[in-house]
């Protein structure tokens, strides 16, 4: 894949804003449009754009941590299962979120301290990890778990 100076630098420039958008989607997902899934796809798109601009080898050099992407997905699944089933251990139905209705929710700016956000983060991790892992597998970046 041929890459020009223009594509390389533009891709570099838009990486941070895209990631910020993704985080924003998660944080304010409970207040307006957007949720963990959208955030995952946005963040995934950021990586795909990098891939298109600089190719697999350079991408792997720039972001060596990408090879651990499958762990994001399975970690996200674990987080999702925990949010779903820890309430059962506490004697509530599956996927009960805390604080319960009618209780006060502490806020950190726009971010609501609510367990539904944890679940949304789980969705984000799974989707993002999925996209990056598949990109790695098909596009040829080495991915943890693929070797041996």
């Amino acid at each position, binding site marked *: 894949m041929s890459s020009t100076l223009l594509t390389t630098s533009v891709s570099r420039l838009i990486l941070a804003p895209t990631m910020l958008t993704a985080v924003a989607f998660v944080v304010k997902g*409970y207040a307006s449009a957007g949720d963990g899934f959208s955030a995952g796809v946005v963040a995934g798109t950021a990586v*795909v754009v990098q891939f298109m601009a600089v190719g697999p080898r350079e991408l792997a050099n720039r972001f060596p941590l990408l090879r651990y992407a499958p762990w994001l997905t399975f970690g996200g699944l674990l987080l999702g299962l925990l949010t779903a089933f820890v309430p059962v251990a506490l004697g509530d139905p599956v996927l009960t979120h805390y604080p319960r209705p009618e209780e006060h929710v502490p806020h950190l700016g726009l971010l609501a301290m609510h367990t539904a956000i944890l679940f949304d983060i789980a969705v984000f991790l799974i989707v993002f990890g999925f996209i990056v892992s598949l990109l790695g597998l098909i596009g040829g970046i080495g991915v943890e778990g693929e070797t041996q």
Partner: protein
Amino acid sequence: MPEPLQVLLPLLVSVAGTGLVAGAGALRPQLAAPIAVGTATLAFITTLLSETTSAVTYNWAPTWGLQLSLATDGLARLYMLLASGIGLLVLAYSSGYLPLHLQHTGSGPERGPRFFALILLFMTAMMGLVMSQDIILLILFWDLTAITSYFLIGYDHQRRDSRRAALTALLITVASAVFLIAAGAMVMHQLGTASIPEILEFAEPGTTTTVIGVMIAIAALAKSAQAPLHFWLPRAMAAPTPVSAYLHSAAMVAAGVFLLARVYPLLELGTGLMDGLLVIGFLSMAVGGVMALAQHELKRILAYSTIGQYGYVVVLLGLGNVAAAEVYVLIHALIKSALFLTAGSVTEATGETRLERLGGLWNRMPWIAAGSGLAAAGLAALPLTGGFFKDEVFFAGAAERGGVIPLLAVAGAALTFAYSWRFWGGIFVGRVVTEPRRIPLVMIAPIVFLGALVLFLGIFPGVAAEIAEEAGSASVRAPLVMHLAYHFNLEAPNVMAMATWAAGLLLVATSSRWAFIPRRIARASRHVGPDRFGAWVIGALNGLSRRLHAYEVQTLQQRVGTIFVAAAILVGVTILFAPPWPSYRVGRFPVDEWPLALFLALAALAGMVATFTSGRLSLVLALSAVGYSISAVFVFIGAPDVALVAVLIETMMTLLLLGVISLLPRDVDQSQLTESIQQRRRGRVIGVLAAGFAFAIAWGVLSRPAPDPTMSRQLITLAPSAHASDIVTAILADFRGLDTMGEITVIAIALLGTLTLFAARRRV
């Protein structure tokens, strides 16, 4: 001991034992056998001690009215004693048999624990099945026995015939179990309860009850290997012998007649059902008796004998003698497992499986000859063995009904007499053909013990009578009286027994004259029998699926075409059977929504371009234009969340497609891209078909009146109390959170699958 524990203890013991055998066996294979025997012993003892009839009930899915309801009533107790008691003997036997067997089949000792764990799992399933007081629970255990038996029959999975036999057994027993599931669903729909005692209490005579009864009977009769669905059992003889001794004498096949007894009051209400049972029972007696005389392999003789013997039980149930049927089940299970174990020991000692390669072993293997002699005498219903009483109750029931039935009963019993002798005499009498090797003591003692037990029940039949009496009473839900004793008179049962011995002796004495008849019938049945039909059906289905698959994977067009056609057929069938025609209406075009129409028109235009363009890049761009236009439509109908996701996915797709195109070679050989005229025409037909049905379905959905807004309004009012101002997110993460949980799990599994595939490719 608290009562719930007392009821559940046998089940809990066998569950724990199964896990323990699997766990300990993985570390040290030689531990598996002792732990398994210990578990079965405990299960047997706890069953003996459980003297309660009350049910233990836990809520399972209360909104569906489902309960985990288990009870050790008299009926359950009989089958639990058989499952754990014979299971114990079979497991002890296996501790000697299995090492030899693994040696013969060239497998290592590490495969042993799997065998013991599976037998215990089967025992657990069997116990759970007979204890179930809830129809859904019963169906679960029913299927668990079928699945476990699949693994047990196919234990020697390196052998093709054993894999095929396992599959046949699974297909017949699971396919027929579908009838049981349907019956369960109908019962729950009709009576609004899944509890078996309530079902039996509230069921009323009528067509529905008859249909339910017939469906339950089909499942039960297939499980008990009754004609015409009997053919899986002779094939299942590919299993290791202890498996046959357990599953095909006392457990798996007994589950069928157990189910009949469990729902007996319901069967009684159905019209013609009892007569149907009589017909099936006598048919199976005939098939089993005649075919057993034609077989040469030891285990196949016994398999056909089992078919015939459970035919007796079905006849007794059809005659309404439930307690007598339970006497029969109990005594036959002891006899038949002894004979199966004999076949295993003889085959291990001589290496022969066929009758003509055996003979004269009585003084080479005296203990086995004695033990199996008692069992065979019992099968032939000679006095002083428990077997005498199994036939006595049978004759008494037949004589009571009168007509042609006593005659059929004597004929069936005479056939049994003849093949009992053929089996035992063929192995132990005559001249020695093959010299036996020494076999371990554990492969002798269980046979002797079972033989002694048959003798004991022949002298003290009261024990069997008491167990069967309780079982029968639990089955008909009213006290029954069962009394077994010798009567020295000329009443019908005794006369019929004597007639049987005379006819049997005559058959044995003249066997060389008629031996060709069953052989000819057996040969003829190979061409027209029900197993041929079953094999044909399975073969035809396999062939169809292979051809479809071969067509599908030829080219990409064919793959896409197959999906489109299949979807079109499904949609077409829906439209045909639930025609929405009258509700199809042409709506009014809202003039003030012209921006919406504009984007729809844009999408249509981009679709046209994508259809007729030839360049790759323009194709990708046109497709993404379709997607973006549709996303814009979502914005206009007020669904920002959906629009956002649609835009994001579209962006991702476009990027990926562009990436793929950039990887393709620039100049592809054009000759490979040109389609034949025929292919083009086929493509157009498929496209028009799929598009037409998609259009019809979309129109139909849009023509429906708008959905009731109560639901969405309720969600909107609920969202603030879930601390959410965005309703879509609240739905995804909270109200329908479990759906989301399922979806993200699927994504993770898809990734796992892809990783595995790539890792496999790397290895090759």
